[in-house]
């Protein structure tokens, strides 16, 4: 993280000098006051006020994420474009290009690994952690839709047969989609059971006993 320390008679003055040197705006930095003291000057006849600040450039999580993702793509020998979409609760990086199957992998395994690494790098040192989601050619969206359809179909069956249904093991993100999809549904309840990585969602006509 780039940062400079500056001294001035007022905080504003010190910050202004720092911004000039860094060549960035006030909205792109974090300001810490290191020293703020009234020093008695020559023979105590006048007071010299000195404020010392450290101004650090705060890098945008989305930009850091996109940059690192592009590096991975280059490393994998994949030519693709990365588009950043900012949502209130997450940052979505859309990857578009030809022949991107290698990025997805079996059951989206590679995509999940890349997403995990990018999230880690982008949030390193960030004060506010942001969820990073990486999508390739709409793969996640389609996958999410198929999970939702599965959830609704199984819920219908549970309601009909009055018997609980145990789904296949899924990763936390996929389970979350199932739970959220059925949250408002009448007559069915969902919970997870088992240990990772074999944890599975149970759709039940009753609330979880025990």
């Amino acid at each position: 993280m780039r940062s400079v320390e500056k001294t001035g008679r007022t905080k504003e003055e010190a910050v202004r000098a720092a911004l000039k040197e860094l060549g960035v705006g006030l909205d792109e930095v974090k300001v810490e006051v290191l020293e703020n003291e009234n020093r008695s000057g020559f023979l105590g006849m006048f007071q010299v006020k000195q404020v010392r600040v450290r101004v650090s450039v705060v890098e945008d999580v989305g930009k850091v994420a996109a940059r690192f993702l592009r590096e991975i793509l280059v490393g994998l020998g994949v030519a693709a474009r990365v588009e950043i979409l900012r949502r209130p609760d997450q940052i979505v990086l859309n990857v578009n290009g030809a022949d991107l199957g290698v990025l997805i992998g079996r059951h989206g395994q590679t995509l999940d690994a890349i997403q995990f690494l990018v999230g880690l790098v982008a949030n390193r040192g960030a004060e506010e952690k942001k969820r990073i989601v990486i999508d390739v050619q709409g793969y996640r969206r389609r996958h999410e839709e198929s999970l939702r359809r599965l959830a609704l179909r199984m819920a219908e069956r549970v309601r009909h047969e009055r018997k609980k249904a145990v789904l296949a093991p899924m990763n936390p993100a996929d389970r979350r989609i199932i739970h959220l999809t059925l949250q408002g549904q009448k007559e069915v309840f969902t919970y997870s059971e088992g240990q990772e990585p074999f944890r599975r969602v149970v759709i039940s006509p009753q609330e979880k006993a025990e």
Partner: protein
Amino acid sequence: MTIARALVDLPEAVEVRTVEGPHGRVLYEIKVDERDVGKIIGRQGRVINAIRTVAKARALRDGKKKITVELAE
């Protein structure tokens, strides 16, 4: 794989050695500063496993058969 470099505190200390074996085998040996070992492994090995998965994708593309990613002591 320079992915490792972005994950650690001391990127200058990162070295990756590639050893090509017979039958399309490749070994990537990652060396990091000892203070960064925990970072590169992650909780329950999540980080190193994610690196392995991405390395495998790369191997698939290069037509290599077996790829191993190990941390050098």
